[in-house]
């Protein structure tokens, strides 16, 4: 028994040079690296925080601030926000309407929350839709040589479609059936999200295709193929994780575009019914009185700008964090 112990010790002694005494550092997970890199980008951190805040505010807001955004209160119309008291103590304000009320007495805080809900919902859904279509088409075009030509020509075709006129035509054609099946607001939501989604996937598709074309010639893909991995598995296991960073970036940009497009539609008066608040609609309704009540333009305007800006910063930070070649610098 003792002999064996001595032997083992001797063996350990003999191969000692080949062994690590202790791990120099703890093993690091990939996502922790990403987070560490992301944390270094102050703008992205603030942007992400703000986006989270806005999303939570529009989701939980109606539970906290329980005022109906559509309720008219004509006696309390044209109230100013509380902060105007700072420089004008005679302003008409009320604690019941902290951000004031519009010309029909609707509470501005409540309409902003309700409007944000619509705008954010349109933004997120349209972005996810565009992203799925774009990634799928980009990957197929990049990986399967035969599909490349037709799919890229299709992309060019969609790129040449002007979105606003297309939306106007789509509103005329599809409003009625969608309204009949889903009701006026949901129907319009589906229409707007659908049209924004199918007209904004092209950039993603092009970027993804380019990346895939370069990646699929690399050695690790060759290795995977040589051991008989199916194309689907190669795409899932090897290609998609490597193109995640451009996808994330175009996702953030897509969210911003969708919010702006929805605002533009509301501004033009097509889109949701006139009493259904969205940020874009609040903004356009307030324009005639913007000299007298600047806050009605500023508040939704600032919210749109900040959301879009924060999304852009977030995308910037994510790109840095997700790209292993940039990470650590």
């Amino acid at each position, binding site marked *: 028994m003792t002999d064996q112990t001595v032997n083992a010790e001797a063996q350990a002694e003999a191969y000692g040079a080949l062994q690590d005494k202790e791990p120099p550092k703890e093993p690091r997970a990939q996502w922790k690296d990403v987070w560490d890199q992301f944390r270094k980008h102050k703008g992205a951190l603030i942007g992400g925080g703000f986006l989270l805040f806005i999303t939570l505010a529009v989701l939980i807001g109606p539970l906290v601030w329980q005022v109906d955004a*559509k*309720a*008219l209160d*004509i006696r309390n119309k044209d109230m100013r926000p509380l902060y105007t008291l700072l420089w004008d103590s005679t302003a008409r304000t009320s604690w019941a309407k902290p951000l004031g009320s519009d*010309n*029909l007495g609707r509470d501005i805080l409540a309409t902003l929350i309700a409007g944000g809900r619509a705008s954010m919902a349109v933004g997120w859904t349209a972005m996810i839709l565009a992203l799925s279509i774009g990634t799928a088409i980009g990957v197929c075009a990049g990986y399967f040589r035969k599909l490349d030509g037709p799919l890229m020509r299709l992309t060019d075709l969609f790129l040449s479609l002007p979105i606003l006129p297309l939306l106007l035509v789509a509103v*005329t054609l599809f409003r*009625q*059936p969608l309204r*009949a099946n889903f009701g*006026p607001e949901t129907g319009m939501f589906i229409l707007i999200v659908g049209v924004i989604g199918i007209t904004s996937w092209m950039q993603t598709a092009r970027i993804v295709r380019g990346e895939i074309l370069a990646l699929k010639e690399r050695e690790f893909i060759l290795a995977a193929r040589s051991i008989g991995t199916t194309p689907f598995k190669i795409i899932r296991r090897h290609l998609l994780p490597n193109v995640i960073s451009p996808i994330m970036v175009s996702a953030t940009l897509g969210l911003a575009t969708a919010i702006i497009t929805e605002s533009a539609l509301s501004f033009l*008066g*097509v889109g949701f*019914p*006139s*009493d259904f608040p969205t940020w874009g609609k609040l903004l356009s*309704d307030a*324009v*005639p*009185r913007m*000299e*007298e009540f600047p806050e009605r333009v500023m508040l939704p305007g600032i919210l749109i700008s900040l959301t879009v800006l924060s999304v852009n910063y977030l995308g910037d930070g994510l790109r840095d964090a997700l790209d292993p070649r940039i990470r650590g610098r």
Partner: protein
Amino acid sequence: MKIKTLLMGTIATIACAPAFADGHEGERGRDGQVNIIYWQAPSTMNPFLSGGTKEIEAASLVLESLARFDETGQMVPWLAEEIPTVENGGVSEDLTSITWTIKEGVTWSDGSALTAEDLIFTHAYCTHPEGGCSQASYFDGVTSVEAEGERGVKITFGAPKPFPYTAFVGAESPIIQKAQFADCLGARAPECTEANFGPIGTGPFVVEDFRPNDVITFVANDSFREAGKPAFARVTFKGGGDAAAAARSVLETGEFDYAWNLQLAPDVLDRMEAVGLGTVVAAYGTSVERLHLNQTNPDPALGPDKRSVYMDGENAHPFLTDPVVGQALSMAIDRTLIDEVGYGAGGQPTCNLLPAPELYASTANDGCLTQDIEGAKALLEGAGWVDSNGNGTRDKDGVELTVLYQTSTNAVRQDTQALVKDWWSQIGVGAELRNVDASVFFGGDPGSPDTFQKFYADIEMYTNNFAGVDPEAYMANWRCRDIPGPANQWQGNNIQRFCREEYDALVDQMATTANLEERGELAKQMNDMIVQSYSIIPLIHRGNPSAHINTLGGVKMSDWDAEIWNIKDWYRISE
């Protein structure tokens, strides 16, 4: 000596300058260009093919009629030498014919003379059985138009016509050139694009370039009958945008000289005017902002041949033909508040479709001026409309009281919509709001599903009025045969598809009644019949605000005719 003369001359010129600046006589085209903005863009220049005010207004620069109405509602001879009356022998003793004499030397802009043939042709064009002439009601009762002598035109009526100044009078019944439109009769009328977009006229201006729904450029008519007129050589008639932008372009930035139909909230308009560049002018005529309650079924499931088509009463609306529902909807509305929020000094609450002139204004419906939510509830309750399934809207026999309520895109109208929806929800009537771009809504395009004539909604709101001072032709709008539908290319002014034999009888009776008092009574009866059928709910008697820049002289806005009826007299006030 020479220098002295020169100096004297200079002084004299300077001294005289203000006098010249004030005067507005001179050669044609001396004042350059005038820019007009109509934020609803005209889609055609042929007023017979469009029920929209904007087309009639745009066409009034080119096409003229025998007489026009000035800003006070007085008739002014225009292409005619004088207004024919019984006294001067122009109107026959038995009131069955009127004879107009065309002014001497009136020519079309292509140089040919205006003759009785053109008037005869215009009558044939507008009354062609296959055509959908929007202004056909102006020829009601006319049996023939004949030439009489060299410049005379005799219009004969089938029965005594006490107010014979309908055909060829006012902007809505102009004269078109036979030579140009000869091949455009009947169903072919909309196909003559070149003629419809650039009609040859007798007016002060000639179409140079017409872009549908965008810009029209006019140049002065070289063969215009009055020397030295018009003062402007060119007119740019811009369409599109919205009322606020149009008002701002005149009152705040001065890019345009004249802006039409500024339906803006009173506080907004006042603040713009305070900049001091321009002036807001309003003319009170017969404009009434009203709700039309569709009497036919607009269910999208019905398909284009049946949806909102009258079909001799076969296709009735599920609940809006019931006057009780309409009455409840009307009682729930606080017209005074709508006026306060959206119109201010530019409007007053009304319960009548025909609020002016005074002779014709009924007082039988004034009860609607006070809001009565409880009364409306009780009324619906009594008629069996109760909320049996607890979803917030009343129902009866499985039919829910929810309406699709559409109007044109305009801040004031959307505010009104929101208010009305709120009141209706208080009495248990659900409303879905929709707004359509004004150029499309009033565009009259038979291919578009969103026009007010198609009326693919339950309730729609807009303003209408009539040109001229006699309501006969206007009240004849609600005859059964004036219902728009696929058969007449959706032309016709009976928008809510109201059809009663008694009403048509009253229209016929008015066409044969001469006594002014009796005519007033008949007009009131017709007004009451429509209002009490609750197929139309009048809201506001509107003044029609427009704005012009302070350097534009000669503007005399008329709500009884095209409001720019006297554009030939406009001039630039030099500073």
